[in-house]
Structures are given as structure tokens and as C-alpha cells.
């Protein structure tokens, strides 16, 4: 069965410290993975997707098929990065456009 696991409910770091939000997935097909972010009082929105291979707001994520992981990283955290982060797996091969989300990780960046 398809599953996305984010092992950390809360990750607390100091400003300027490196950040890594963990995500592991289980999927027998070819995975397409995303990171979504929800800032306080804002809508849930796309942060980045693995096929774009781009850095957004200093964040990057690399798909590791061997370890079935898609961890989100940033070398120097900023206070404005504080938010809820969700890793998601696309089931586009099923033609439904469904996304399976992880449990979410709250990132707290302290000054």
C-alpha cells in the first residue's frame, strides 16, 4: 500500500542552524514526490516537487529511491521558515491526481 511517513511531529532549531525534515515513502510504482508548507494563517501550498529539481526559499529535496526517502533540507534556517511541512506522494499513475500526505512536521525556528 502507498504510504508516506514523517517521523518527527516537531522539529525545533535555532536560527542559522541546518534543517532536515525527514520523509520516507512506500510505493511500488514510479514515485512523484512533493513538499507542501502551511504558514500560520495561510493556505497549504506547494513548496517544491522532486521533478523540478529546484531550490525554493533555500530548501532542496533529493529523491533517494534506494532509501525510499525525500528529505527536505536547508543549510541555514530562518525564523520565517517556521511552519507545518507535509511530504506528499502522487498517485498520478492512477489518473486520479490523488496525493497521499504524511503526518506533517512542525518546524519551529527559534531566534
Amino acid at each position, binding site marked *: 500500500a502507498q504510504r508516506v511517513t514523517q517521523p518527527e511531529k516537531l522539529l525545533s532549531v535555532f536560527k542559522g542552524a541546518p534543517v532536515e525534515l525527514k520523509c520516507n515513502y512506500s510505493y511500488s510504482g514510479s514515485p512523484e514526490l*512533493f513538499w507542501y508548507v502551511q504558514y500560520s494563517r495561510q493556505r*497549504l501550498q*506547494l513548496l517544491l516537487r522532486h521533478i523540478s529539481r529546484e531550490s525554493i526559499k533555500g530548501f532542496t529535496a533529493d529523491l533517494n529511491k534506494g532509501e525510499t526517502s525525500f528529505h527536505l533540507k536547508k543549510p541555514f534556517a530562518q525564523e520565517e521558515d517556521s511552519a507545518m511541512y*507535509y511530504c*506528499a506522494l502522487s498517485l498520478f499513475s492512477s489518473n*486520479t491526481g*490523488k496525493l497521499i*500526505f504524511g*503526518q506533517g512536521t512542525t518546524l519551529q525556528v527559534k531566534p
Partner: protein
Amino acid sequence: SQTIHQWPATLVQPVGSPLSLECTVEGTSNPNLYWYRQAAGRGLQLLFYSVGIGQISSEVPQNLSASRPQDRQFILSSKKLLLSDSGFYLCAWTGGTGELFFGEGSRLTVL
């Protein structure tokens, strides 16, 4: 540009009462539509999705139902609410690019 609206934003209902949450999308046609529930500690759970008018797929057995009476309208309903139906409900759409666009959410409290 495309927009998505959800209402009501907040709802407090007694156990056993009916529910109707509405979601509409503007600026696009034939979107795939989704209802998610965001519960503390459980992440985002896909409840229903629809690939067209009158086409509803349920992801989890539950006390809720969904309907899509028009191309850009998606409704989440219940005939009799349970305490366990409390949560934050998110409507989303995708036009096939892989990105989900979320509404602002509806917070339901069942007392």
C-alpha cells in the same frame, strides 16, 4: 486566474445534526476535486475525490458523503454528525499539472 473558495470557515454543530460544507472553483473547467481532513497528529487524510460531475470516490469508510452537482462545485455532507467528525476540512483541486491548490479550510467542531 484560478481561485478556490470554501465556506463556512468555522462551524459549531451539535452531535446528530446535519452538515454541509461547500467548495467552488473559479477560472478552470473540469478540475479534479478533493476533500481532505486535517486532524492533529494524523496529518492530511484524503476523504473523497471527484474526476467529474456526479463521480465520487470515497477513500475511507466514514459518516460523511460528498457530491459534485456542478463541474466546479464540491459538497461535503453528513446526515448526523458524530463527535469524531470534528476537524479541519480542506477542499483542493488540480488541473493535471500535479500541483494541488487548497482552499482556506473549514473548521468543524461537533459538541
